[in-house]
């Protein structure tokens, strides 16, 4: 926590906060009365956020990297990190609640109050080692319940502002040390998402099993012929040569990696993991790749959502494997990487008439990385009483997603404090609740 944010935070928390020193470099601010909010008369388990694992900073190659995973369609955060200690949760979700730990398809207990959806078991080793954390009741302060609008706000980093054209990751990229690499930022799939749109050059990583297969433009005879036409030193010529260079670099890296895997006799993983394995290996092998982005869809569970098993469970399982694969394949670079999982908004607290949930507000953000100060839930739990819900129906938001992203930008990606206003203009609340998320 830098001095400015510390003071800013104290200013907000006023006299109702105490400062608890944690570890060597950090301190946590715990508002007085936070734990007592849960020990109400309702028979709930006491609210508990878990205790961060005490450990030293783990060294990688020293080049910070960041991967954003966007769950498009609004994942149901209350069934991802489950408040199993709250009776109202079970009352509001009679058919879709994830059962208490120890029951059939029950949550995996994390803190005594919060638990993890059982489909996310592949991530538990990272929780145990203190490399996985969550920020609950987080999200975008704008009240929109429109997928497209809310995604847009989260990607431009300017909630409520319609007309921001570029994305905050592109602006962040613009603040990184200058690089001549055409693959400083990499997005999976064919189109460039709003979050990475802007002035900085972004490379697209092909996806799927055939991604490493050569296309027409990869044939030397073909790209030489085009090269002759694009020989001029104008904007088109430069763009063409950058494109070919990026493609060559990615293709070479991918085919040698895939070759190596084949030699080891390891089978290619399935689905999302094919792509995250490739992304992990690319980022591990090429420290010039600083930013990664991928989007995963299918979370708009208005009907038949299921509980510990069912539709949502079936989508969370490959996501967990995909993320664990990414972490593994990053190898030593896992220590240089923070993976953030976000979604545009959460879903309604109560289940609807179709065994699903509708568009809500607050959600949970996931943080995974070698130097994430994990084994704890960050943020401030607002509670699930009707009065505590947003508009009487959704989890409230107590941590702005930009607080998390600013912290990562400043403390992990080492963007100077003075440049933060360019990445998140109009955002002034700093690292509230999350200044301490890194080891």
């Amino acid at each position: 926590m830098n001095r400015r944010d510390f003071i800013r935070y104290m200013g907000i928390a006023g006299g109702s906060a105490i400062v608890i020193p944690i570890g060597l470099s950090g301190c946590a601010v715990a508002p007085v009365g936070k734990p007592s909010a849960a020990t109400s008369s309702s028979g709930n388990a006491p609210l508990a956020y878990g205790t961060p694992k005490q450990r030293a900073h783990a060294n990688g190659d020293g080049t910070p990297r960041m991967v954003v995973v966007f769950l498009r369609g609004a994942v149901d955060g209350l069934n991802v990190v489950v408040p199993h200690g709250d009776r109202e949760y079970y009352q509001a979700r009679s058919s879709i609640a994830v059962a208490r730990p120890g029951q059939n398809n029950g949550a995996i207990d994390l803190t005594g109050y919060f638990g993890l959806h059982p489909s996310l078991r592949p991530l538990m080793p990272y929780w145990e080692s203190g490399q996985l954390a969550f920020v609950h009741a987080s999200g975008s302060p704008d009240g929109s319940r429109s997928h497209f609008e809310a995604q847009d706000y989260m990607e431009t980093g300017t909630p409520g502002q319609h007309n921001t054209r570029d994305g905050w990751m592109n602006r962040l990229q613009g603040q990184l040390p200058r690089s001549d690499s055409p693959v400083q930022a990499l997005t999976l799939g064919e189109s460039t998402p709003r979050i990475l749109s802007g002035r900085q050059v972004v490379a697209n990583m092909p996806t799927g099993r055939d991604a490493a297969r050569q296309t027409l433009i990869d044939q030397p005879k073909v790209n030489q012929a085009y090269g002759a036409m694009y020989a001029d030193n104008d904007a088109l010529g430069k763009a063409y040569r950058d494109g070919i260079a990026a493609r060559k670099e990615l293709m070479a890296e991918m085919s040698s990696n895939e070759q190596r895997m084949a030699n080891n006799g390891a089978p290619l993983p399935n689905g999302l993991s094919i792509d995250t394995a490739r992304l992990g290996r690319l980022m591990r092998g090429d420290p010039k790749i600083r930013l990664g982005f991928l989007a995963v869809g299918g979370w708009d569970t208005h009907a038949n959502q299921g509980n510990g098993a069912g539709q949502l469970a079936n989508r969370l399982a490959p996501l967990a494997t995909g993320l664990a694969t990414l972490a593994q394949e990053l190898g030593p670079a896992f220590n240089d990487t923070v993976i953030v999982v976000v979604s545009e908004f959460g879903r309604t607290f109560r289940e609807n008439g179709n065994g699903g949930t509708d568009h809500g507000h607050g959600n949970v953000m996931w943080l995974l990385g070698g130097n994430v100060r994990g084994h704890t839930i960050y943020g401030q739990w607002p509670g699930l009483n009707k009065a505590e819900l947003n508009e009487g129906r959704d989890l409230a938001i107590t941590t702005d997603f930009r607080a998390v992203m600013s912290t990562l930008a400043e403390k992990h990606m080492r963007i100077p404090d003075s440049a933060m206003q360019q990445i998140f203009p109009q955002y002034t609340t700093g690292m509230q609740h999350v200044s301490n998320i890194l080891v």
Partner: protein
Amino acid sequence: MHTPLRHGLTGLLALCLCGAASAQALTSQEKALHVLNRLAYGPRPGDVAAVERMGVQRYIDAQLDPDHIPFPADLQARLDGLPTYNLSAPQLYIQYGPPSFPANTATPEEKNAARQRAAKEITPASHLARLWMATESPRQLQEVMTEFWFNHFNVFEGKEWVRYWNADYEKNAIRPNALGNFRQLLGAVAHHPAMLYYLDNWLSSGTNTPQAKGRFKGLNENYARELMELHTLGVNGGYSQADVISLARILSGWTIAVREMKDDTDDATFIFRPGRHDTGDKQFLGRVIPRGGQQEGEVALDMLARHPATARFISTKLVQYFVSDQPDPELVNQLSQRFLATNGDIKSVLRVLFDSPQFWARKNYQTQFKTPYQYVISSLRATATPVVNDKPVSGVLNQFGMPLYGWLTPEGYKYSEEAWLNPDALLRRINFVNGLSNGKSPIARPEGTQPSPDAAAVDPVQLIQTLSPMLSQNDVTTISSSPANLQVGLILGSPAFMKR
């Protein structure tokens, strides 16, 4: 190696005495290519010669008067055959909107199926109609201006109900006014359910008005703000937050006739609901607005359409679209003055533009980097590839970051090189056009069918002729020394064809 191009090369080089002298006036052939690139979506086979024969001035005059250009009967017949394209806005709502949804007791699968019908039936028809018009309509400037105004008054087909109506919006609010009067265009947009829905004005009610309840309970500023920021005055057009609120109050009660549509599908889709209109006093842009119900909104639209800031904002966008990413302030001035003098007669404003020396300057010839849409449409036209299946075209526009009717925020797409030129985009374009060369493109055949065995490949010699005088001598030399099966891809993937 004998390549098709080598045979025709001697003749082609003669066609391609391409502009070495930068200050010289455009040749008559260059002028023909220039108007086809700017007033149309690029040349089809034979177009450059035809325009040269008729003279560019006569071509421009004809394009400014689209109703007198005969519309091809075959194209009309295909449009008439699109099942949803000729339904009225109320019919679309009733047949595809909430009135068509099954009862609450239906299974989730049935409910989902009902909700997805619009995307399965209306969307392909609206995409096909747009793509046919853009590639085939002889009224090319009308199509260019239809795209321009749709983008200026953008709506996003993915926002729930907009999908029912975006084709109707284009067909009945935008296209008929694309070369008409700006105030009428603005009014047609303001009353159309696609815009009322997209920017939420249909939900907006004056605070504490009798019928302000449920989802209609409060004032919504969304449309009022964008109406000034994006549709008329521009962001620095001299209005305040107080004006935004005033305009939202003025427009409160302007809504979609949801109930009326259900009763009588011939009725209009727009309705003014006095019970949701804020009847208080209003100051707007320094003027007191007399109390007058719906008329207040019409007065506000009049004020906005006549405002000098609007004239300047629209003129700037037109110069950027037709001349250069860096608009010449003098030309913008001239257009603004004509805009104000003619009360927003779009045709007159465009005439000033097409008569200007800036439009014809060599420094503005073949210099604008095509948007993905311009690139795709112009390559379909140049190769005379018929659009039989819209899906591969929509797919490639998605990939290129410019999905048709798919820009989600109201400011629309940018038309600048800065917005579209990047390394990945060039390689994608190159991969795309190589798929057009052998005549077997999935675009040109019904979904799920095999290419016809006698599908003819595009002839590179003819393609160079079609585009002449676009390519440089260096390009032609490179192309002709390459393998035959790459030549079409090289022509369409050349730096010259990336520009217009």
